[in-house]
């Protein structure tokens, strides 16, 4: 039996999530305590800024999810009654579905964001290192991560950038195709423009940084980007060679005027038909808005980038239904597979099979023997029962032992095959 208790961005605000988070260095001891106090065969703790979840596996299914919730509150010294409204508690099929959806980023604050997959992987890895992971959770990990990867590759749930700096990169790729050997010109050394430039450089672009008042910051940023620095006075010449311009200065007025862009494009030599992509992420804006009307010039300010991010998000939501269906299918398959591995029904079936055979053989014997005295009848019953009991003893004990030790799943399917069940 698998259960999950936790809080996420959907049920709790940031302060509460922070209060219930598990710091990385306390994870190993928390896992040990969790297994101990909640009586678990296996445990995992997923603690990110958007969710804190305890995964537990135990053969004693009774109140499993409540035991997890109890531990979550007790560990952080919060009374259960206070947190009941925020902590969700899931068990069995519900818990499995939830685990699949979380890994596939269907439960994320930003639908389809890629980090969660790595975070889930990391959480399982840490639990495994701490020796806390049980067989069911190992199986859950393997199947849910595989399903998450399928959802990402077979549906568009992770397509299209939804953060401003990635949108800038996506637009650059939509205009220029490959970024290799494109020239990026940074005007100003703001944090956001640095971030966008880093993505572009990562894609193969070359960076030039223009310093505002002093060159110090520009030189530092340029060396971090593997590019070069120049003074702002070189704007027109530098822009003539640029494909992409990112402007993010703190200047109160315009920094790039229409005349600058026109002059730069006039001096581009054979390049004046090439597109020019201007990204203005300054507030107040750096680039004269009428520049957008120039032929071959694409100008995006911060609001425009956000508009694109919103549109991209809508595209992702269109894909969410397909991803949900895929994940649901995988979760159901996992549940069915899990059911087939359960030893309790296996034991029951095995005993039933033995009893059926005993009865059938007994009836056959009676027909051959004719009428029996009650003593003979009793002796026959006792003898056959004893045979069945003795034959069944070892497998029963062994199966129960396997349950306790967290049997490897292959054993059960092998057993089923051998016993013809």
């Amino acid at each position, binding site marked *: 039996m698998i259960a999950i208790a936790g809080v996420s961005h959907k049920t709790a605000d940031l302060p509460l999530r922070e209060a219930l988070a598990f710091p990385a260095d306390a994870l190993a001891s928390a896992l040990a305590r969790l297994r101990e106090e909640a009586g678990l065969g296996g445990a995992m703790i997923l603690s990110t800024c958007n969710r804190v979840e305890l995964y537990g596996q135990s053969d004693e299914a009774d109140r499993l999810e409540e035991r997890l919730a109890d531990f979550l509150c007790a560990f952080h010294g919060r009374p259960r009654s206070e947190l009941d409204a925020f902590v969700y508690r899931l068990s069995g099929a519900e818990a499995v579905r939830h685990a699949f959806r979380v890994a596939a980023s269907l439960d994320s604050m930003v639908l389809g964001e890629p980090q969660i997959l790595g975070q889930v992987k990391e959480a399982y890895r840490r639990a495994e290192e701490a020796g806390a992971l049980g067989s069911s959770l190992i199986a859950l990990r393997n199947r849910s991560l595989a399903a998450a990867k399928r959802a990402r590759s077979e549906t568009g749930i992770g397509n299209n950038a939804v953060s401003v700096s990635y949108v800038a990169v996506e637009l650059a790729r939509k205009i220029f195709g*490959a970024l290799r050997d494109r020239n990026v010109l940074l005007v100003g050394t703001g944090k956001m423009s640095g971030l966008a430039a880093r993505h572009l450089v990562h894609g193969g672009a070359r960076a030039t940084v223009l310093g505002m008042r002093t060159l110090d910051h520009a030189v530092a940023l340029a060396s971090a980007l593997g590019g070069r620095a120049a003074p702002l006075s070189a704007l027109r010449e530098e822009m003539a060679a640029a494909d992409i311009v990112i402007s993010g200065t703190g200047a109160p007025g315009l920094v790039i005027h229409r005349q600058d862009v026109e002059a730069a494009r006039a001096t581009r030599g*054979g390049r004046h038909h090439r597109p020019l992509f201007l990204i203005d992420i300054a507030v107040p804006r750096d680039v004269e808005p009428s520049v957008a009307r120039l032929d071959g010039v*694409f100008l995006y300010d911060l609001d425009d980038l956000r508009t694109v991010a919103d549109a991209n998000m809508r595209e992702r939501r269109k894909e969410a239904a397909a991803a949900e269906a895929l994940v649901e299918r995988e979760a159901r398959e996992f549940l069915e597979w899990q059911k087939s591995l359960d030893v309790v029904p296996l034991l029951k079936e095995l005993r039933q099979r033995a009893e059926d055979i005993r009865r059938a053989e007994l009836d056959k014997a009676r027909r051959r023997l004719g009428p029996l005295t009650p003593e003979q009848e009793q002796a026959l019953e006792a003898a056959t029962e004893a045979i069945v009991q003795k034959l069944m003893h070892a497998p029963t004990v062994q199966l129960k032992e396997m349950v306790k030790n967290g049997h490897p799943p292959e054993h059960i399917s092998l057993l089923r095959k051998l016993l013809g069940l």
Partner: protein
Amino acid sequence: MSAHHYLLVTLGLYAVGAFDMLAQAIMRRRLLTSWTVTATLVGFALHTASLSQRWRDAGHFPAVGLHDSASILAWAIVLVSLVVYVRTRVEALGLAAYPVAFGLVLIANLTPASESGDPMLQSLFLPIHAALAFFGYAALFLAFTMGVAYLVQERELKGRSPRAFYYLVPSLERCDTISGRSVAVGFGFLTLAIATGMLWSQSAHGRYWTGDAKEWAALAGWLLYVVLLVARRRTGWGGRRAALLGIAGFAAVVFTFVWMTVVSTSVGAAQ
């Protein structure tokens, strides 16, 4: 099965491919499904069977009259778009190619096959000239669609409001490159088609140039493409201007085709 039966099944399969792709584009923005691929490939095989059957039935290369011309043009468009897809992996190619192929096969299904015993059609020039022309048309059609994709997407990007094309077609750079290469290839075919057409005219009528409207349109389109190719080579200009000129050139090509197959009924104009 007769050529016409093959063509009817082809129509159905192309319909599946085209409509599946369009529906996917609208609903999910994913283009190529196994439905489209299977339907198009099987459709293309049957289409080929239909054309070879028709060649046998007609007794000459099936490129005369609207029925045959529409069918073979659709065939060339599907083949060229498949080849370009294999080379570029751009799924959006099919977005225009498959519906147009469907439309052309529909026209072919609705029009009767023209029968003619004109001895001119027995000339070896017919298959050579027609094959060159139709492959040229198909390549230029592809260049035209990538040009349109370029223009619409540029408009979306310049207007800062990404819509359908932003999500469906490749980058401006790639649209431009594919369009440019298709023009170069299409132009080569077109040039050879015009040359073989003139030789055919010479051998049949004793004149290289008959002054037919179709010939003037072909020449106009050819000249527009010359300008386009020289401009691309010399000044490196591509993008919007190239797309617009490519569209103008293609309009002349379409006029040539329509004039040849619909307006002009004389066999002499089919060269």
